[in-house]
């Protein structure tokens, strides 16, 4: 590995009174697929625009391959962006759009034609070179925008919610295409999205953001299985979050019972939150599981049933089950110690990682 392509050191950004980024630190390794995930207004697009060079941080340093690039203008950075609204040039045709960056760089004519051909082939648009932009469908415009960016052979490709304007089926297709494109090219992709499903499906590494801060970074599996706090657990996937107390290492109490778990390193009787994913819950006959609940609603979703239920302490439970049940029925819920994930209140990422390190 070539090491870090991009590094953010204590980056902050403020507009007048409002601080949109607070002390952002991260490192981007070459050749990986990164996703900045968060709700709208969390600052993820601000980070992307800083990497592209459209915005300057109020404080902190941006490093590109070890060099400070804070003051390097956008047109001289070796990154290219795929914009949310594609931002194609309507007066140029497909091939001319893709060739734009190469012509600016004064690449030889023959080479341009060859690179344009290659870029269009990569996004499966061979033979579309002479089309006008107005003749293309949304998905095709998206591909042209990607081809235009990768034709320049950037070190890093930035993608600003590029799939949000596509319909569900096309979005799924483009997700796997982008993923395989990234693998083939070996370029670092930084993808911005508010769609957690998209982030989980595509990324090597996810940064979950909220309110100008990176809350957690890690692989999709890490973040899904071990969310750092309530926000992350709630934002990534569906979850049951129940307040509890840590009784001892590997023992947590919630809902009036004590359960074995796989978490440790907390103070005795520390108040915590417990996360159990709806798909980890199995419905059993009443009194044979760990908790008894009464089924409130049941929704058929094709792959499974989405069931909501409540227990005697009025905690609400979400269950995804492939087996049907009956509304109003008392059922048992079975889960294993590994299905329980304990989160502390206000733990930051460094302590969280250190604690996990200790007992894993």
């Amino acid at each position, binding site marked *: 590995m070539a090491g870090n392509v991009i590094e953010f050191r204590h980056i902050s950004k403020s507009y007048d009174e409002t601080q949109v980024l607070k002390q952002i630190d991260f490192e981007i390794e070459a050749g990986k697929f990164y996703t900045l995930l968060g709700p709208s207004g969390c600052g993820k697009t601000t980070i992307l625009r800083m990497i592209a*060079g459209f915005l300057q941080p109020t404080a902190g340093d941006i490093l590109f391959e070890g060099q400070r690039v804070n003051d390097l*203008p956008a047109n001289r950075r070796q990154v290219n962006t795929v*914009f949310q*609204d594609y931002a194609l*040039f309507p007066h140029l045709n497909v091939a001319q759009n893709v060739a*734009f960056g190469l012509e600016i760089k004064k690449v030889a004519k023959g080479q341009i034609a060859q690179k344009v051909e290659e870029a269009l082939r990569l996004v499966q648009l061979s033979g579309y070179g002479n089309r006008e932009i107005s003749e293309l469908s949304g998905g095709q415009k998206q591909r042209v925008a990607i081809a*235009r960016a990768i034709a320049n052979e950037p070190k890093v490709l930035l993608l600003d919610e590029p799939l949000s304007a596509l319909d569900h089926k096309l979005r799924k297709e483009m997700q796997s295409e982008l993923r395989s494109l990234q693998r083939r090219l070996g370029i670092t992709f930084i993808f911005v999205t508010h769609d957690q499903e998209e982030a989980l499906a595509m990324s090597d590494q996810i940064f979950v953001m909220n309110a100008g801060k990176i809350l957690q970074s890690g692989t999709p599996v890490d973040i899904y299985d071990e969310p750092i706090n309530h926000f992350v657990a709630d934002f990534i996937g569906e979850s049951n979050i129940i307040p509890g107390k840590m009784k001892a290492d590997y023992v947590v109490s919630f809902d009036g019972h004590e359960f074995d778990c796989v978490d440790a390193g907390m103070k005795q009787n520390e108040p915590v939150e417990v996360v159990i994913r709806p798909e980890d819950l199995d419905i059993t006959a009443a009194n044979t599981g760990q908790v008894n609940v009464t089924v409130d609603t049941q929704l058929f979703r094709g792959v499974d049933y989405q069931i909501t239920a409540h227990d005697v302490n009025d905690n609400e439970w979400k269950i995804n089950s492939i087996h049907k049940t009956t509304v109003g029925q008392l059922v048992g819920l079975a889960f294993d110690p590994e299905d329980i994930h304990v989160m502390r209140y206000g733990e930051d990422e460094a302590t969280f990682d250190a604690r996990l390190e200790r007992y894993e």
Partner: protein
Amino acid sequence: MKRDHPIRWSNLYLLLVFIVLYLPIIYLIIYSFNAGDTMDRITGFSWRHYLTLFADTRMISIVLNTVIIAVLSALLATIIGTFGALGIDQLKKRSLQNGILSLNNVLMVSPDVIIGASFLIFFTFLGVKLGFGSVLLSHIAFSVPIVVLMVLPKIKDMSQTMIDAAYDLGATKWQTLTRVILPAITPGIFAGYFMAFTYSLDDFAVTFFVTGNGFSTLSVEIYSRARQGIDLEVNALSTLMFLVSLLLVGGYYLLNRYNEKKKIHRAKASQEVDDA
């Protein structure tokens, strides 16, 4: 096709309006072929007014002057106005932008007579000799606001990310301007140019003040001749100019149709590629 009503009232109204609009011109055209010297009655067919017109070198040179002034003033006004519009768009402060735009609009609505008179005072104060230069300058001045008004909406319509994309792909400010921004607002620039052109061609009031001796444009010349009684040579000239405008409009229409046909043809061709 509906045929319940023998007369469509809306069509009849339209016909009436066009008759009222075109009648004076047709009347003028008919008398341009009159053998007599007045528009009282037609005494016979003759080309003699046209022959006088072509022999009238003063009139021909004034026509040329008018066209040159229109072409040049529209061109310069388009350049100034386009960059002006780009500049207004760049202004960060909303209030400043609106203020400048209002100043621009005031020039649009203020009466020509006032603009003309103020230019006359201005030029005499500066000691500028009245003639071609003063007419050109004043035409540029009243055309710039028109161009700004035609170009600015096109700039506003342009997506900001398109400009970002140009920078992102390595373009400098100048390259972004020439390769992305100007092509995107070209329709507005053309519309501005043609508006400025027609305004300059038409203008009487402003020109009247700043022509001075020895230089004249068509509208001023016709006005001064009309004061000595209408000469049918003017009818002949008007007829010719009407025909030229008719040809220009017709040509524009045909060009548009041709482009559209080409587009449809291309779309069909690419459809076939898809099907194959």
